[in-house]
């Protein structure tokens, strides 16, 4: 019989005696009594062979196998209930031995070289040079490993991505630093929304089409007087004896008449140069020689039409605006010359000091004789396209020995911290502390972590960590059956996601206890979501904090009762207690169930079956089979506790005509009824803290966990042991892990 907590426990105790035990005598009694009957030989159940463990010499064990044995035993899934509970003494002895075996191999590990993912790239660019660059939908999606998109091993660099990185660097640099020259004065393309025209023209093939006399133009605010270039890109459907003709007008005066000889698919740019005085004036393009001959035998030559693709205003010549970033880089207190500007950017972008020769090379990207803004702009392209920016490099000093451990230097630590908590570059404070090696001091580190969590940039941690941990991102993709749930739309979807993110953010920023994720006395709602929940008194479209009275708290207090999680874990047409149970195990307890074996019977969902019995009854028949019961006893019980919430997260008292029964018995025999009881149970379970610590570590380190990480995490759990800790404290504990602050020197080929 497992002790008090229902799915895990036994976190800390390294039975002192177990270490001295020889493996066979420590683990053999348990394996022999409860395991090997099924798990041995060529036809071992689940292809897991435990007889082999008995024959393995000390120090040669498959650590992954030992770890999974321990996880199965602790969860109570194994041995299956039918086989009877293992002897408590045998169990403790075996677990103690496994822990000791695993802890021998403690080392911080070395995460595989990580490239920036899309969010990190966007944030880093914005912090570096003030350009908000949208990569979503353009860069390929980042692959996900261990539930997160920050895993070095799966963030690969296919050719197409490199190409996009180079083009992106060019576009970003061009937006960050405006450079004008005689060939290319500062210009503005008139956005479609600013176009005025004589009548409601249709846009056709991406162009404004002029079918008869008329114009398209813009009322433009010319901020300064000077010489301007007015440009038009156009083509025409040619008909009749002469080419299509257009007048370019400014404030009603014709500046010039132009023949448009270009045809579909090969538009041409026409340009006029003129002096313009400051103030708002209309620049327009008039179609002046409409022609139509219905008798023309060639249909394509009957109608002369003018198509204007865009208007552009360039100038005044010899003048360029400066972006805020340019001003900040080159003027005021930070007056830098080109070389200093390049050095500053490279240092921030590459998150480390740069060498003189690196700056020399960057200075040579622009052609000889270029002015300073151009030198810096062109260098910025190279800085952003370089592996020094795109990869988070941790280079071992040359005097270190391969496979030995070393502490990260200040810059490396600052970089790990800032991508962990902000998903972006270290800021100047972190970089200054790194330069002085101060980050390695414990109190400084703690103060910085606290500062970073309070800072608005930790919103990225909420979106990226919580969004993936709680699987909120999957909300984008779910499609509840529209005929059953016509109210579900994108606005509601967004509110659902916001509710959970805001709760996580409040617990984080306000240094609240972890358990408040599962049992808070407040939530965040807007009018739509409040109506969805049947909570009154919330009006208007903005999300705000709403206190929950005890009754409401029992129904909506905690992530398991929030629509976001309830929707993500449902099928389009019905709830799935199995998926919900799996979510709880995977997300909150860190003990994912095995996937079903292929070919197993699935649930009968024919209309006859659904009419004959409740989902609960049907699932219970389903798990009458032993091979299903192993997991489903647990999965279904957890899921049933949430059956009062329908597939879109609304409260219900019956489903398919049957009253809801939300009671269940957990693997350890605990009985509980309903979501609130389940949440209280989970909040008090040490497995929840341990699971969240693991998820944080995976996210922060960018790699999966190995048996060698277990001792560090065990120590972490033990040090927090049972206290009502806050989310901030847990984040700090993860930052203090050896695995976070140290690395293993790489083996050189």
């Amino acid at each position, binding site marked *: 019989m497992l002790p008090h907590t229902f799915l895990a426990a036994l976190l800390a105790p390294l039975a002192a005696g177990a270490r001295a035990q020889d493996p066979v005598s420590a683990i053999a009694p348990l394996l022999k009594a409860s395991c090997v009957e099924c798990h041995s030989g060529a036809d071992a159940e689940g292809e897991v062979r435990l007889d082999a463990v008995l024959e393995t010499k000390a120090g040669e064990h498959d650590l992954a196998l030992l770890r999974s044995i321990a996880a199965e035993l602790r969860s109570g899934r194994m041995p299956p209930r039918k086989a009877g509970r293992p002897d408590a003494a045998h169990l403790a002895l075996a677990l103690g031995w496994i822990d000791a075996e695993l802890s021998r191999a403690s080392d911080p590990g070395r995460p595989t070289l990580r490239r920036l993912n899309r969010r990190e790239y966007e944030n880093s660019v914005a912090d570096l040079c003030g350009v908000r660059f949208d990569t979503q939908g353009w860069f*390929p999606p980042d692959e996900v490993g261990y539930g997160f998109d920050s895993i070095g091993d799966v963030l*690969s660099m296919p050719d197409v*991505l*490199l190409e996009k990185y180079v083009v992106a660097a060019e576009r970003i640099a061009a937006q960050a630093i405006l450079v004008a020259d005689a060939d290319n004065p500062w210009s503005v393309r008139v956005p479609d929304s600013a176009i005025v025209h004589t009548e409601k023209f249709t846009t056709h093939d991406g162009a404004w089409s002029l079918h008869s006399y008329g114009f398209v133009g813009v009322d433009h605010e010319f901020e300064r007087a000077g010489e301007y270039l007015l440009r038009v890109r156009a083509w025409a459907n040619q008909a009749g004896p002469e080419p299509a003709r257009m007048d370019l007008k400014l404030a009603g005066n014709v500046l010039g008449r132009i023949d448009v000889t270009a045809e579909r698919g090969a538009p041409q740019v026409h340009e006029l140069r003129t002096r313009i005085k400051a103030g708002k004036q209309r620049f327009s393009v008039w179609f002046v020689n409409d022609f139509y001959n219905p008798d023309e035998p060639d249909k394509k030559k009957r109608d002369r039409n003018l198509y204007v693709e865009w208007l552009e205003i360039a100038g005044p010549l010899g003048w360029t605006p400066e972006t805020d970033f340019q001003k900040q880089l080159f003027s005021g207190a930070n007056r830098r010359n080109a070389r200093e500007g390049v050095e500053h950017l490279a240092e921030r972008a590459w998150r480390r000091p740069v060498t003189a020769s690196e700056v020399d090379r960057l200075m040579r990207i622009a052609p000889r004789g270029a002015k300073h803004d151009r030198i810096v702009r062109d260098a910025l392209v190279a800085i952003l396209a370089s*592996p020094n920016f795109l990869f988070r490099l941790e*280079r071992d000093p040359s005097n270190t020995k391969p496979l030995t451990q070393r502490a990260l230097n200040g810059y490396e630590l600052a970089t790990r911290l800032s991508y962990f908590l902000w998903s972006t570059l270290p800021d100047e404070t972190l970089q200054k502390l790194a330069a002085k090696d101060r980050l390695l001091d414990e109190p400084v580190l703690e103060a910085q972590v606290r500062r970073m969590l309070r800072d608005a940039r930790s919103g990225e941690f909420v979106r990226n960590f919580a969004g993936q941990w709680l699987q909120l991102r999957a909300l984008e*993709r779910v499609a509840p*059956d529209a005929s059953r749930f016509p109210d579900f739309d994108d606005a509601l979807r967004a509110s659902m996601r916001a509710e959970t993110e805001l709760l996580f953010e409040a617990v984080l920023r306000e240094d609240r206890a972890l358990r408040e994720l599962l049992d808070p006395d407040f939530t965040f709602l807007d009018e739509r979501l409040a109506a969805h929940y049947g909570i009154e008194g919330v009006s208007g479209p903005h999300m705000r904090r709403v206190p929950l009275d005890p009754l409401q708290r029992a129904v909506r207090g905690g992530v398991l009762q929030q629509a976001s999680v309830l929707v993500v874990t449902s099928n389009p047409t019905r709830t799935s207690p199995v998926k919900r149970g799996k979510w709880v195990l995977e997300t909150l307890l860190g003990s994912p169930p095995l996937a079903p074996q292929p070919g197993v019977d699935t649930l009968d969902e024919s209309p006859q079956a659904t009419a004959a019995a409740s989902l609960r009854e049907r699932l219970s028949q389903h798990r009458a089979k032993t091979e299903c019961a192993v997991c489903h006893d647990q999965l279904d019980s957890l899921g049933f506790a949430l059956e009062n919430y329908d597939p879109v997260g609304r409260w219900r008292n019956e489903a398919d005509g049957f009253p809801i029964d939300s009671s269940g018995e957990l693997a350890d025999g605990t009985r509980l009824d309903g979501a609130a009881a389940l949440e209280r149970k989970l909040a008090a379970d040490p497995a929840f803290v341990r699971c969240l610590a693991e998820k944080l570590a995976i996210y922060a380190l960018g790699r999966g966990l190995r048996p060698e990480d277990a001792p560090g995490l065990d120590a972490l759990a033990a040090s927090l042991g049972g206290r009502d800790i806050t989310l901030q404290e847990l984040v700090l504990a993860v930052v203090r892990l050896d695995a976070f602050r140290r690395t293993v020197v*790489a083996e050189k*080929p």
Partner: protein
Amino acid sequence: MIPPLDRRTALRGLGISLALPLLERMSPARASTEPAPRRAVFVYVPNGVHMSDWRPRGEDEALELGPTLEPLAPWRDSLLVISGLTHDKARPHGDGPGDHARSAGSFLTGCQPKKTDGPIQAGVSADQLAAREIGNATRLRSLELGCEPGRLGGQCDSGYSCAYSNTISWSSPHVPLPKETDPRLVFDRLFRDDTSELPEALRDEHRRRRRSVLDFVRDDAKRLAGQLGVSDRRKLDEYESGVRELERRIAFLEQRGRDAGFQRPSELPDNYADLARLQSDLLALAFETDSTRVATFLLANEGSGRSYPALGAPEGHHELSHHGGDPEKLRKIAAINRHHIELFAHLLQALSRKEGESTLLDSTMLAYGSGISDGDRHNHDDLPLLLAGGRNCDVRGGRHLRVAPETPCANLWLAVLERLRVSVPALGDSTGRLDGLA
């Protein structure tokens, strides 16, 4: 016989229109007497199919289509349905559950994907082996298309990284290629360049700078490689390969000139079927302009839970595929299967345009299939697979080819590669080239 389609009619409806005279300008510098280049497309559908509807009728070699494949009737003469192929490497072999991830991961590689969420590994896929060789002749070595972006977070299949389920193209055993799911971006890759709209003088300047940036970053990568460990160095190799490939593409662009005169699709279609059709149109356009000769196309990701309400199947596809013999579910599965085939028919139609004396389709071999046979049993033998087109590539259609049980699917890929004149001695678990295609 399908009449060759007017290009404008084919594309206009979906938001692409093109200028015929310019198309010629864009066309490859290939003499008209030269034979058309050979090409291949690998189309993938997830979650297996309802086999009894898929399977051709009758016992003869002559092809008699069942209900699923019926929409392909107009192309019957160029269809070769192949029954009995197996993907042994999609089976567990001790790795336990995860058939979906394994079937996509092994589909074109013939290799057992490594069960991990971390250091992913499969093998080089057949399309990429072709891209390495015949891709040299074209601006893009290959094109990877799809209709569903990757999953955002969460696990995809029983401890397998989502990377396995989201693509069938692998350029190395560690690099799964992302597919393009936005037709506008497919268009940009094919025909656009940031310099397209710049005046001549600036364009040269832009190119000069790009060359010096590429020199700089290649140099950076070289310097770093000396300071990094083995696994980190692999990441830098990926980076360097990207730089080389970009340089190659720039060289092409500079020879070939600018803007092709095609209109970019103006928006993302708001429904699945139109999206799939638009992707097919772009694929046909890519072949027509000889921008590439190799492609993969995932009609949906492996394990896809897409619902098809228009077909009366609001449940997720994956959920339905575990039908447990329920006739109602099987009917819905069959409807989804047939819908996918109709979308494939649109691709065949788009490729039915004239090319010299024959059609694009005649020089294009299209493979269509899934790495799972029955979605409920998750079996990887007796797979649903067919070849279409390729009349000029030594493929004889109008037939139902039955192969010995347990014949590796990789044998078929070797036979396709051979017809692309790509000589590879073996691929994954292949045991030889599949005979009987001609």
